[in-house]
């Protein structure tokens, strides 16, 4: 009995608050906060490690899932196709004429006149459009030809486009001609008008040049102004364009069809379009599909692309082969997307909310030709013809690792976001450290002496630091303005070292000019570092939804490097760190060709990669450099 009573008492004791409930709660809260702050460094390391690892394992075959059709209206590969050998013959005849045009060195005006006449002979409404772009890197002139097949059974307020550019995307428009692509479009124009099932207008566009012709045509079609573009207005008009297919067929036959889908500024088309064409090619055309022109490792007999540093036993492992194949696809994707480049002519459509892809006939000695390609395009058009509303059901954010597997946004986005979270934690840590000063004094009360730790507030000179940040961003703007000038572009070798030197001196001036630090206020470098990390993290996490590849690239370059900025005890070490940061910030200037290309893309196609690098990336690293040389 007694034992029971004591047990009950003990039990009661256990649950009765020993102290005031408020105090207990406060203590608990304090303990939780101190646990968090004590382990903050570990947490940051874990977040960074997980983020970087996640980026590394993105190509793994264990991540992601198979593609699937989301829009039920599309019904890909469900129709009989009528494209036949007669049409192939017509395509061959067109090809012969185009080849003779090529051999006679016809001007672009003559070419477009020829194309217009061919369309007119078919009974289609057709016209040409001359255009010219004015650029510091040389003006561009050209002439597009286009024709419109009026929808026999629709109100003519919607349209789809079949296009081919005169230059092929292979070699990024270095002169490889897309003659077979153009003849496919001509033969399709001849063939498609025999059928009365089109509910949308079909527009055939043969654009001049590589990207420039189609850009001019689309700009004028959508009545948007561009100051450096001078183009004739379009004589013929149609409705809203929903989808577009661009045909690129540079070789004389092909083994695979490659899908190119990246658009300007990292835009991707709706995945349903890719999935439809992929299914149609596989089931109707019986042509294997790849992403880009990368052949699947099972298909390619060529030497393996696995890195040579791996031991041969690993290199022949199918898992490793699969991983390398997927990694190559992703790296290609990152290369296009991060720089905001279009991987083909289709990429220009996306800015007008048109879902478009390029079907690229991977050059090979066989076995496919016009016959397969025509059937695939015919069937794809039938699928696009089924649409009742814009493509919206499937994904706009995805990473396509293989033609039939992809990753959803939730599977890849956290990698970059985790890194940015680690950076913002580090920034907030620096901010708190800047605001408080640790005072340690020995308290002597007679017999025993003990350390007493107190914290006192310090003033942070935020306005001063914001001025420094503003100066670096204005410096970025100045760099951006200067590299666009023709003076710079003509004398890159001379100006790049000059700009680099001039820019790298500015942080020194900043660090010398003013240090408003009075006794007991926080060191400037710590506040600058805090704000630098926080703003970099904000940039990364907001860019993730706009252009994941760019965000991932920023997370990789800025994540670790900005976290380690700070003055060192030795002057020499600080200086070395500073030089490293300046190298990271301005090293891109020394890639002459890439810089020119990026500026061209900005001038003509409004790709904001170049201004972004100048106005955001470079200043952020310059700030980190300034952190290193400010007095500690």
């Amino acid at each position, binding site marked *: 009995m007694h034992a029971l009573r004591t047990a009950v008492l003990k039990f009661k004791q256990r649950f009765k608050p020993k102290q005031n409930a408020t105090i207990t709660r406060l203590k608990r809260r304090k303990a939780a906060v101190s646990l968090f702050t004590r382990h903050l460094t570990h947490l940051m390391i874990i977040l960074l490690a997980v983020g970087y690892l996640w980026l590394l394992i993105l190509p793994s075959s264990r991540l992601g899932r198979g593609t699937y059709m989301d829009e039920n209206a599309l019904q890909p590969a469900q129709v009989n196709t009528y494209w036949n050998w007669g049409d192939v013959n017509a395509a061959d005849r067109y090809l012969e004429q185009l080849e003779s045009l090529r051999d006679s060195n016809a001007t672009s005006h003559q070419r477009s006149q020829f194309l217009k006449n061919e369309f007119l002979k078919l009974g289609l409404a057709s016209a040409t459009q001359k255009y010219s772009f004015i650029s510091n890197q040389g003006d561009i002139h050209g002439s597009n030809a286009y024709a419109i097949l009026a929808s026999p059974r629709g109100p003519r307020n919607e349209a789809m486009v079949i296009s081919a550019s005169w230059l092929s995307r292979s070699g990024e428009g270095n002169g490889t001609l897309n003659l077979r692509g153009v003849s496919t479009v001509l033969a399709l124009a001849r063939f498609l008008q025999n059928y009365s099932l089109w509910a949308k207008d079909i527009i055939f566009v043969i654009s001049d040049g590589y990207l420039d012709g189609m850009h001019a045509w689309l700009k004028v079609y959508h009545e948007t102004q561009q100051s450096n573009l001078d183009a004739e207005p379009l004589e013929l008009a149609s409705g809203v364009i929903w989808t577009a297919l661009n045909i690129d067929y540079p070789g004389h036959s092909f083994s695979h069809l490659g899908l190119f889908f990246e658009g300007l500024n990292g835009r991707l088309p709706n995945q349903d379009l890719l999935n439809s064409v992929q299914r149609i090619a596989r089931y109707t055309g019986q042509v294997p599909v790849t992403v880009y022109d990368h052949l699947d490792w099972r298909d390619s007999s060529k030497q393996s692309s696995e890195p040579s540093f791996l031991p041969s036993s690993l290199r022949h492992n199918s898992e490793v082969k699969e991983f390398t194949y997927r990694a190559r696809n992703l790296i290609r994707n990152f290369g296009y997307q991060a720089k905001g480049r279009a991987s083909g002519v289709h990429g220009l459509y996306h800015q007008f909310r048109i879902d478009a892809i390029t079907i690229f006939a991977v050059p090979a000695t066989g076995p496919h030709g016009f016959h397969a390609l025509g059937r695939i395009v015919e069937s794809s058009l039938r699928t696009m013809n089924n649409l009742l509303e814009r493509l919206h059901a499937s994904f706009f954010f995805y990473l396509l690792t293989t033609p039939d597997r992809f990753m959803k946004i939730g599977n890849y986005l956290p990698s970059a976001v985790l890194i940015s979270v680690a950076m913002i934690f580090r920034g907030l840590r620096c901010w708190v450290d800047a605001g408080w000063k640790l005072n340690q004094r020995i308290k002597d009360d007679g017999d025993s002496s003990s350390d007493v730790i*107190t914290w006192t507030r310090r003033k942070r000179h935020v306005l001063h630091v914001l001025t420094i940040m503003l100066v670096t961003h204005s410096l970025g703007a100045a760099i951006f303005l200067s590299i666009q000038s023709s003076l710079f572009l003509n004398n890159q070798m001379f100006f790049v070292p000059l700009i680099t030197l001039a820019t790298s001196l500015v942080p020194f001036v900043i660090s010398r000019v003013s240090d408003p630090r009075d006794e007991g206020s926080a060191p400037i470098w710590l506040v600058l570092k805090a704000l630098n990390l926080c703003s970099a993290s904000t940039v990364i996490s907001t860019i993730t939804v706009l252009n994941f590849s760019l965000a991932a690239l920023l997370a990789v370059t800025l994540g670790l490097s900005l976290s380690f900025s700070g003055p060192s005890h030795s002057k020499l070490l600080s200086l070395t760190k500073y030089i490293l940061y300046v190298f990271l910030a301005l090293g891109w200037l020394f890639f002459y060709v890439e810089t020119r290309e990026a500026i061209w893309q900005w001038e003509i196609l409004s790709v904001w990669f170049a201004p972004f690098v100048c106005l955001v990336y470079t200043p952020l690293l310059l700030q980190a450099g300034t952190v290193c040389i400010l007095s500690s």
Partner: protein
Amino acid sequence: MPPSTSGLNAAALALVATRIVAALFSPENVLKRDQLLSTPLSSYTQLREGIFLFKHNIDPYSGGTFRHSPLLLALFSTILPNSRTFASLLWTAFDLLGAWALVSIWRARQNVSHTSRDILVAASYLLNPYVFLPTLALSSSSFQSSLTLLSVKYAAEGNASLALFLLAILLHIDLSTFILLPPVLLLLITGPRSHLASPHALAANLLRIIPHFSRYLLYTGILAIVSTSITGGTRWISQTWGATLTLPDLTPNTGLWWYFFTEMFDHFRPFFLMVFTLHLSIYAIPMCIKFQYDPLYATFLLLGVLGTFKAYPTLSDPGLFLSALALFPEVYPYLRHQMVTALLHLHAALLMPLFNYLWLSTGTGNANFFYASTLVFACANGAALIDAIWAGLRIAIGEEKEGYMVVQE
């Protein structure tokens, strides 16, 4: 050493010049359609449409698009010319007026004729992107902010009739500003001086607000009669005040209402409209009771409530709250999480236009994207408001003693 007067004048001139240059070279055509900068109740395009109809003897309130107050209609159909440049300058002039009012409030609070901080206070208003972007978009919400500041200025200076008259106009432009009435009335019977550090019960006799209140009612009534005679009918009531209460136009904006009511089943709508409106008004009296010793601070906090919770907010509503923070430097040391608030605002300010663009321009996102970013914005505004309340109360307790902790329970 205080900066010289000429230096301050130069800085002030530079500020004004910056704003005028910005007004002259702003891309209004892009900005005026921006959903963050103007709502159906404050959009310039709709105002122009209303004026057009009005001038052609068509009742602008008979359609469903024009929701500006008849007072604005009368004002702008007389002074608004067709020149874009003039409109931009006019809107910038409103902002300058607002900045001047803010500086006057600051001086009245300090009870001095001028201070070296004046220019900072003015800059906090004129250079606040939340304030000047709606102005560049010619949204009438910036007109509203200036009116609010002017009304508070006259209340702080003891000029009851002007303060109440401006407040009555404000009520006609935006019904939700009625929650500013109690603190402004208190401000008229006490004063603008800072008593945050020494709280005390209301010294003045509360009955003294009755004449002020009746005056306010009188002004409101007169303005209502004027409005009715301008438009020749009472249809404006349901189109302007009614819009704030019944939310007929669900065009997206930075606030919390539109998404909630797009998702709402129709038979719950009246109930939740009542809940949202009541929720907005529920803050006015408690704030006034708690800060009865410093009604200017209560006014400031209620501006924060408006910026977060009102029906058709633009960026200038939270912008007004953030700029008004410059009036209370004494609470700065007691703010707990300025950096977190600032970062939330930075994220929201980047995400809102981005997600709006992804949803409506590129079509790759959807409404949920933009709604999520407005939630981030609401968190940012909420964080600022809560921190301001905390700091305003905390300052009364003074320096923290060793071994003690000040908490809010």
